[in-house]
């Protein structure tokens, strides 16, 4: 209904007022937004295609051309434009990162909510599973899994394998976090009230638990996405990406394999590396700030904290702040 829409707009505006003043948060948002911009508008940001070979005046392929010779970022060992590769590569890196991150978030949140809400054997089972995964070191496990699955030659794109493996392995921290939050929420009086009214589990989880926990989920998703991007880059660097759809990690892999370092072609490996840092930093800054802001704080008791102004009465709705 339209009133809900007004309410939503009001909430977003309130949020924006506080968020806008937070510098690290805004910086993070900017970093992330600019990367997304790059990914979305890739074809408009460069005249070339990633597979085009740059040729010089004589028709010869320009290999390892420096940025001075061919801007803005020079060419790689096969004469392809690095800037183009970077811009199109952002699509891969970000796509894998976001989808894997989302998958992770969904699994982790679901399990965390179930474990926290139901407790008992459900909780035990899930938490022991989490423990097992936590004990085994992340990267080696991921590596082995990805490599093994690829050996199976299932005819699935390597990117899909990456997304699935990362998504299915990195939910544990989210699950832990959400679970502990749910444990707190479960004890709050408004949940007891819902139960006293006669609400069943589904109603309580959907109407009371999830709305309370959602902000934390959102904040955590951003952080998980950062992890996913880093893991993907790492694995791609080790050669487990898709060479036909190079992500930034793959680009660095190529750079190393094809002697960019010995050739002094810093423009080939540095930009992708910096791009990864750029996005990860953005996600982390944004995620941390969101978590701080959205973490539900316990409402303070009006008798204890006198510096809290008394809540304004309904009739003064027009006067804000």
């Amino acid at each position, binding site marked *: 209904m339209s009133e809900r829409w007004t309410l939503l707009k009001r909430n977003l505006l309130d949020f924006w007022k506080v968020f806008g003043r937070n510098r690290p948060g805004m910086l993070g948002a900017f970093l992330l937004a600019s990367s997304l911009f790059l990914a979305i508008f890739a074809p408009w940001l460069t005249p070339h295609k990633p597979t085009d070979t740059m040729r010089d005046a004589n028709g010869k392929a320009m290999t390892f051309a420096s940025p001075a010779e061919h801007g803005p970022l020079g060419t790689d060992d096969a004469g392809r434009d690095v800037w183009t590769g970077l811009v199109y590569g952002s699509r891969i890196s970000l796509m894998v990162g976001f989808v894997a991150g989302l998958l992770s978030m969904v699994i982790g949140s679901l399990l965390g909510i179930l474990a926290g809400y139901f407790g008992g054997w459900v909780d035990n089972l899930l938490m022991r599973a989490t423990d097992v995964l936590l004990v085994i070191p992340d990267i080696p496990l991921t590596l082995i899994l990805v490599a093994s699955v690829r050996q199976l030659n299932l005819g699935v794109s390597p990117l899909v394998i990456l997304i699935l493996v990362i998504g299915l392995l990195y939910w544990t921290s989210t699950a832990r976090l959400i679970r502990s939050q749910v444990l707190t929420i479960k004890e*709050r*009086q408004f949940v*007891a*009230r819902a139960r*006293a*009214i006669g609400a069943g589990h589904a109603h309580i989880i959907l109407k009371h638990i999830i709305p309370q926990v959602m902000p934390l989920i959102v904040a955590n998703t951003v952080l998980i996405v950062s992890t996913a991007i880093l893991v993907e880059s790492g694995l791609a660097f080790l050669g487990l990406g898709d060479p036909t759809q190079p992500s930034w990690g793959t680009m660095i892999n190529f750079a190393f394999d094809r002697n960019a370092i010995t050739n002094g072609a810093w423009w080939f490996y540095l930009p992708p590396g910096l791009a990864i840092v750029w996005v990860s930093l953005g996600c982390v800054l944004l995620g941390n700030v969101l978590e701080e802001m959205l973490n539900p704080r316990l409402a303070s008791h009006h008798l204890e904290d006198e510096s809290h102004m*008394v809540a304004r009465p*309904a009739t003064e709705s027009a006067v804000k702040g």
Partner: protein
Amino acid sequence: MTAPSANAPPILEVRRLKKYFPVQQTMGEMLLRRPPNYVKAIDGVTFSLAQGEVLALVGESGCGKTTIAKTLIGLEEQTEGEILFQGQLVGAPERRVRAGLVQLEPTSAGGVTEARTREPVAFPKVSMKRLRQHAQMVFQDPYESLNPRATIFDIVAEPLEVHGMARKRPERMARVKTALEEAGLRPAEDYFLRYPHELSGGQRQRAVIASAMVLQPELLIADEPVSMLDVSVRAEILNLLRDLRRSRGISLVFITHDLGTVAYFADRIAVMYLGRIVEIGPTRNVLQNPQHPYTKALLSVIPVPNPRLRRQRVILQGETPNPVNVPSGCRFHPRCPVAFDRCPQVDPALATITAGHEAACLLINGGRAL
């Protein structure tokens, strides 16, 4: 005050209610097969509530009054005892039978009795879910009992949603509007889209009451409904409850530690100590002629805003013992100013002082043992 109808059956009856919480045992205790300890939060409580009556359950922390509230509304399940709503048994004793807490024996007449007491057991006719359509709870903390992310409309409409009533939007809006206006929040539409933090404490408590009233219950259980409000606001809420009682004939179980509020408002008072009712009776009788030593002590120390008042205060030593270690005999005897030799040995039952006024003390009418 409106006199409760004398001839109608009581709307609520509680019989020999007990709620014990088991204490987690250590490994050592489990290995040695020691019997588990229990926190005896409610240890045999019986009372009834007439239609349209306000009964106050009064006591200090640890006396079990909040546990009774939770048990009545189904947030906790009783260990023993029966709850009857409008004469019909509430709950699911089958579970307790299965858990081995209640032993049943068949009788020759084809019915079933409880092995220990030989009382016939009626199987419940009213499930907890149905009870909740007729009985609702008002919680203590107006700052915590409302979901901070829900609008007032959602909060008040929630009981309708949970019980599948008023599914169509216009009907739902009408019922929410009525409930809000009855609770004194006018114009109701102004409040629909507000969040709890935009309301003052008194307004929030009104919203809580509105949400309790939206199903038009016959029974309200109010757990310290005004303790967290400023003094100048309390009267509003108390007056609201009083008006609701008058206009709708609602019965009220009013739980509080504040005897002053009770004096203003209740028809009968039940004073609780360590899981039992130690004194019960019409308000005036209990306040002006208390019989149980605990009641007398309590009344003597309640601060009264009158500096000229000189009174003899009976300040008990120590604090209420842990309900895990209930003293033998009369549970109040360690702190009782007038305890004598029989007190640690005999657990007194409620003895009649005058009609409707009872107290559990051996000094009354010779005192009956339990």
